[in-house]
């Protein structure tokens, strides 16, 4: 039992933090939001750090690094409110590509490592509500290829992606299919998201696809990919909350009302103590999420749902209270706090919200409980 980071991990954190400070300050971010929420230049910056290929196996030009390294990076990207879809591409999609036997997967992995390729998962549908198999998109065999028909929503990167991993059903079973950007009969409808990032809906009308994971192993691969995504979001949220709390502490110590800093008022001090509680519970469960990724599926899924419940509660409390503690300045677009709040809100709505995962915890409950249950 050991929650220290290695020297290498501390160096990795330092590298990413310095990059954020130098190349991704709040004004830079604002300009990226204005330009659609995705910066090719920023993505190249991440690729130059070598981290777009963090989880890509070394045989395909990546670093083959593990879950804790990913957590460290996500905390720092969260702290900087980085819009580019690192988790979606370099963790979630990379896992699905790295576990695929399709020849095209290897080529895409190399592209991810160099920063040329952005492959993302297109899983959510208008009525699927986080349930991985409650989807209507269909896949049909067409000679050597497949044709995929359906609609996907809230696909990260959207127009900036080079390919999509689309979940679809063939008969009753779930498969995962790779659809390239620009494929015929694929319409990408881009839009900005509430937190300023780029996303899109996909309209697939028999779009040509290659099979990445056949029915049979797709479900398990997708579940693990989503769990990797949940752990990444938990870490991102911890970084974002850390920074938001720091901003709030600074504000409380400088803002004066009734002739004194508002940090002197006990009502506000106790609120801050409650915020700190939620932040530390969230950090604890973010570690838990990452460290449970290697467990067998039932224990892993339960743990990741437990983590997302805690994070959901913490993000909402910390987000709402930090806005409240700022008063009027907290609700403005000009000041950073509101942007952290919006990102935390969108994280809750990604890969399952608090109630969804509470239902999962409830359904998976066993007689014993605890970190090692």
């Amino acid at each position, binding site marked *: 039992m050991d929650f220290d980071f290695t020297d290498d991990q501390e160096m990795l954190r330092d590298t990413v933090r310095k990059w954020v400070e130098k190349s991704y300050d709040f004004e830079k971010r604002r300009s990226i939001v204005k330009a659609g929420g995705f910066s090719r230049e920023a993505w190249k910056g991440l690729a130059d750090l070598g981290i777009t290929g963090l989880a890509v196996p070394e045989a395909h030009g990546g670093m083959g690094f593990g879950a*804790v390294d990913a957590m460290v990076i996500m905390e720092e990207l969260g702290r900087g409110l980085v819009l580019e879809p690192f988790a979606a591409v370099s963790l979630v999609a990379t896992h699905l590509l790295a576990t695929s036997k399709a020849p095209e997967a290897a080529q895409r992995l190399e592209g991810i490592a160099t920063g040329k390729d952005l492959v993302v998962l297109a899983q959510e549908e208008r009525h699927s509500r986080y349930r991985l198999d409650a989807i209507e998109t269909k896949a049909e065999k067409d000679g050597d290829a497949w044709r995929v028909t359906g609609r996907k929503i809230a696909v990260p990167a959207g127009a900036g992606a080079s390919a999509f991993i689309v979940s679809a059903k063939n008969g009753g079973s779930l498969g995962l299919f790779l659809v390239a950007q620009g494929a015929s009969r694929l319409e990408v409808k881009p839009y900005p998201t509430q937190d300023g990032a780029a996303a899109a809906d996909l309209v697939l009308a028999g779009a040509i696809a290659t099979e990445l994971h056949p029915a049979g192993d797709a479900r398990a691969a997708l579940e693990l990919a989503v769990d990797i995504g949940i752990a990444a979001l938990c870490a991102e949220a911890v970084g974002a909350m850390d920074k938001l709390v720091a901003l709030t502490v600074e504000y409380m110590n400088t803002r004066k009302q009734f002739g004194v800093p508002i940090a002197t008022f006990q009502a506000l001090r106790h609120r*801050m*103590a409650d915020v700190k509680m939620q932040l530390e519970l969230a950090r604890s469960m973010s570690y*838990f999420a990452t*460290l449970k990724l290697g467990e067998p599926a039932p224990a892993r899924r339960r743990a990741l749902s437990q983590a997302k419940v805690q994070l959901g509660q913490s993000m909402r409390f910390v987000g709402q209270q930090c806005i409240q503690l700022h008063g009027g300045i907290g609700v403005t677009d000009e000041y950073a706090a509101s942007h952290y709040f919006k990102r935390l809100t969108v994280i809750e709505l990604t890969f399952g919200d608090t109630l969804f995962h*509470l239902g999962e915890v409830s359904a998976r409950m066993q007689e014993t*409980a605890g970190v090692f249950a």
Partner: protein
Amino acid sequence: MDLNFTPDEQAFREQIRAWVKANLPKEISDKVRNSIRLSRDDMQRWAKILGKNGWLGWGWPKEFGGPGWNAVQKHLFEEETALAGAPRVVPFGPVMVAPVIMAFGSPEQQRRFLPGIASGEVWWSQGYSEPGSGSDLASLKTRAERRGDFYIVNGQKTWTTLGQYGDWIFCLVRTSNEGKPQTGISFLLIDMKSPGITVRPIITMDGEHEVNEVFFDNVEVPADQLIGEENKGWTYAKHLLAHERTNIADVNRAKRELERVKRIAKAEGVYDDLRFRDEIARLEVDVVALEMMVLRVLSAEKSGKQSLDVAGLLKIRGSEIQQRYTELMMLAAGPSAVPLIKEAMEAGWQAEHADAGAFVAPLAATYFNMRKTTIYGGSNEVQRNIVAQTVLGS
């Protein structure tokens, strides 16, 4: 980073588990598992079993006869005893006063008092709170005046947990009214059989006699029972508070009681009611998160690499969870928790009425009892003050 305990730690856990299995009397663990009242004899019996093995002072260093365990080993010991249904060790002797005697007592005091604490022979009580001094403990008024080789003690302590069984009591007493209130306090060890001491019960809302008032009327205390220097008692008491770290969260007991919540919910037919089950699920998440926070503290202590100042958070969260599981147990019993049965916490009555669901009879009383957890040991509001000070930097 690694979530798992090392092979050595695992082996240590197995060793403790086997020992507890072989040595914890079943009559006692049955009582603990069913909220049956523990007698003084029950508590003493378990204390002496531990004492005989050198484990009643499980947090003690080797030089004072303890096992010299590190933070993780202490945690594993606490976890294994709690999960097995062992009673909570009455902390006033081995956990609270002993570390003060070790750190600030004279060699003579150490020789005189530590063996009786380690063996479980001598029952200690705590004399801190007073009727006028709760959260503002430093305002305490119980006076100790030096006269020759004695201190003459006058005043009143209150909320003295299990003081009715106490052989000795360690007290914070006022020896000076000069300067700040904190600087006039001394730390005295007092024999509870001394003439002039009266112990009166306080009956709490669950009908139990757990806490007491202790009156001091011209009690003569030999001066060699002063710990350290006169007027330095506040410093020693703070050392004691700092000594209580992860134990304060009581997460191991919470894990055991969460299992019990599930058993009761099943027996009462609400486990499959999704609204009720979701409440248990929320508690389960809370317990896992608390345990992770405890493990983070242990890891930080073990490596010494990162400091983690979350003792206040552990106290707040741990106490809230203790209240919550007793609340859920009572809610699971529903109307069956309503009848007031005075014998409900007696082993004999429970055995006689086992078929009639006797196990739910004490649940309301347990819920009432646990309201204390957010009040004692520094109320949760005081803890929030401390947390806020750390976070806000002033």
